[in-house]
């Protein structure tokens, strides 16, 4: 299945996915936060796709929204796909995809820790990257500031 075929397949069979232009190399689709787990399960169990491999989850702070981007792949069909979820900037929260891909465990923990995005249905949401006595908030947020942190102006 080539990239174009995958795109048309997803557009016709998955109405909950919206194609996004910002993905430069691989396909990038946007899904609503409520439908995320359902869609992921469907993508994994679809015989034609079999997205059984979760490569990475990145959290992003765009200053207006929070994003979580799921980079998934299919090992048997050799496909790649990015799924993006847009979350509000106030009280962001999302369901865990741990039930779909167990690998999500630590990635979601990291997002919870560094971005402060609440993860529902996660079995072990504890601090692990930052020091145990960390009390300075979520450092990966764009508006995060600390006394010894120097920010250089964007050009």
């Amino acid at each position: 299945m080539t990239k174009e075929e995958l795109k048309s397949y997803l557009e016709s069979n998955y109405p909950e996915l919206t194609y996004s232009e910002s993905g430069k190399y691989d396909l990038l689709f946007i899904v609503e936060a409520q439908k995320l787990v359902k869609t992921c399960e469907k993508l994994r169990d679809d015989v034609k796709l079999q997205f059984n491999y979760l490569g990475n989850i990145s959290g992003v702070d765009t200053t207006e929204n929070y994003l979580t981007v799921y980079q998934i792949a299919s090992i048997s069909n050799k496909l790649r796909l990015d799924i993006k979820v847009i979350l509000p900037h106030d009280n962001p929260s999302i369901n865990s995809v741990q039930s779909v891909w167990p690998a999500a465990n630590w990635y979601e923990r990291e997002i919870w820790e560094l971005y402060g995005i609440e993860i529902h249905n996660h079995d072990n949401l504890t601090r692990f990257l930052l020091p145990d006595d960390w009390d300075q908030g979520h450092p990966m947020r764009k508006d995060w500031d600390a006394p010894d942190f120097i920010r250089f102006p964007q050009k």
Partner: protein
Amino acid sequence: MAELRTEEFQVNMGPHHPSTHGVCRLLLTLDGEKIIKVEPYIGYLHRAIEKICENRTYPMCIPILDRFEYVTAMSCNYVFSLAAERLAEIEVPERAEYLRVIMLELNRIASHMIFFGTTVMDIGALTPFLYALREREMIMDLFEMTCGQRLTYNYIRIGGVSRDIPKEFIPKCRETIKTIDEKIEEYKRLLNGNPIWKARTIGIGKLSPELAIAYGASGPILRASGVEYDLRRDDPYSIYDRFDYKIPTYQNGDVYDRYMVRLDEMQESCKIVAQALDGLPEGDIRAKVKPNFKPPEGEVYTRIENSRGEMGVHLISDGTNKPFRLKARGGSFAHLQLLPEISKGCLIADLVAIFASFDVILPEVDR
């Protein structure tokens, strides 16, 4: 006879322990020597690479990413350059692609040498560690000759490589890969017939392909479990489609297979380097890239086959000269969270062997 009461106890393995390869803390719950539960605690090397990369220009990110996974720093250079090139749609000259492949494969061999040495050392034989490092030094010489550094190279840049190889490089490189190829055969003779080595590795830490895929394992660990999946072939990048090489795959998914996959992979890498040296064209080594590199808006996730599995960079550009978001993904991160799953019920010595066979490098986990 009354039943003897046993008590579980907890042992902290790390953050400073000879066999955690850096600063990982494993909290073991033990029943005698038997492991009931393993909880990895990470973050002792969390240097906030992702955060500080948001604060740097694109070329300045490359040396920082060198430190992201220092054992295969070339891959880190490459995966970031590839992401930037895909964003800006830069065409890389032919010669630069060949040089990149040579360096990537040499670095893969160097990294697997470290794996070989430390794994064998963790299972108790100290001597092969020094043999492996001896061969690694030859590759270090080649790198030093090319870019002046032994460990963190900053060699592969956006649009090409930083400098051309010197004249002496090609003959010396041919000699090196020939020696290494012979030495790997020697390693196999040294260990594969050893009954103690076999007893310690065969059947230990079995990882089924389903579990491996579900937990996001990649690279040699996935291939040792019988899944023939190599990003060089299955998600092609660079010019790997021009070379003839096999993808070593083993079926059992135990420590022995993970070790054998890597040994075979080193020999395949030797083949690729030899072919790349044969086909090395003349020409430019770097595409024209503005010093103040500003890729257009967009986002890209690139992934390459590193010696520790899938190495990926998720790069988001907002059109300025600094990355808006850079997420680096290393194979070890996924592998370390797999460790508690497969080390239940084994002994401490097995845990050490399994941990070593995963070849976890902590900066890749903590970043």
